[in-house]
């Protein structure tokens, strides 16, 4: 039952991502967000921060944001390690 509900949550997540980016804004700059499919996240280009999505729930708490390098989101894993260490 738990596995089924987790799977349902995940499936519901991917379709809803696009709609979310249309409604939600960056909690810090209040500017628009961009969807990133893999890893699922919402990017705030205005301040170069990415916010994760877990089970279809966007995590837009300012302290959950990971600062992106100007190149691209490939360095996401390193940033994730950093923020994990900071926490």
């Amino acid at each position, binding site marked *: 039952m738990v596995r089924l509900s987790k799977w349902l*949550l995940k499936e519901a997540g991917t379709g809803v991502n696009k709609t979310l980016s249309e*409604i939600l804004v960056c909690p810090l700059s209040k500017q628009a967000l961009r969807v990133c499919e893999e890893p699922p996240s919402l990017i705030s280009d205005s301040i170069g921060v990415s916010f994760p999505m877990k089970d279809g*729930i966007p995590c837009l*708490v300012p302290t*959950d944001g990971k600062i992106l390098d100007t190149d691209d989101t490939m360095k996401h894993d390193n940033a994730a390690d950093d923020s994990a260490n900071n926490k």
Partner: protein
Amino acid sequence: MALRLVTKNLSSRISPKLCSASLLHSHATSFGFKEVREEEKSQMVGKVFSNVASNYDLMNDFMSGGLHRLWKDRLVSKLSPFPGMKHLDVAGGTGDVAFRILESVNSIKRRALQDPLNDDLQEETRIYVCDINPNMLDVGKNRALEKGLGEDKSLVWVQGDAEALSFEDNSMDGYTIAFGIRNVTHIEKVLSEAYRVLKRGGRFLCLELSHVDIPVFKELYDFYSFSVIPRLGEIVAGDRESYQYLVESIRRFPPQEKFASMIADAGFQKVEYENLVGGVVAIHSGLKI
């Protein structure tokens, strides 16, 4: 005793702004009756709610004798939900208020029968549930699934900070915060964010545990709060400390009149409050004109 009275008089004569600032500062650095660093408060509160999340609804029933359900019903009735509305429920983790609003909107739809305009509006209804704690949101999302609302696109779950909301200005018809504002670090930021996201004509509603002044009843309530509740927390949830924090935080929160003036300071008009159960809870409301 006399000295306390004198200092009390003095402090009320000092500029009200100073008083407000010190009150807010003391809220930001208080964790129940303990003094903490401002930057720590959010984490400590986070731990409390991660601990209580799985038993949250059960404990609410125990502690309030089921009354919290009626209080939330009253809150939602003051909101006057309508199909097509965009509503934000902050600190609404386990979904109690959001589900009630959704039910209320759906019941309007049923009453309207075959009204094509209403059907389209119904599609547009959006209730955003925002909570800073992921455990509380998980409980809420699972409850939605159990109620068969898992696929309902009217409900949108977002993890966010009430002090820095991820919604646009002037986007919400309604804003509710039930039993949440007591736990934030900066009350004034939460109020100003609420003001920002509400549309003109939008309603702010806050349901919160408040202050009892009625003699005798006050003493009984104090006894219940400090002797019974933490013990109940220990027995039912295996967590005495979290419930100790909860009852202390109620006493540290500004009283009804003071909180009402803070809401007005944020820009809201027609600010009023209604006491329930002699002030055990209060519903504060304001309008963004």
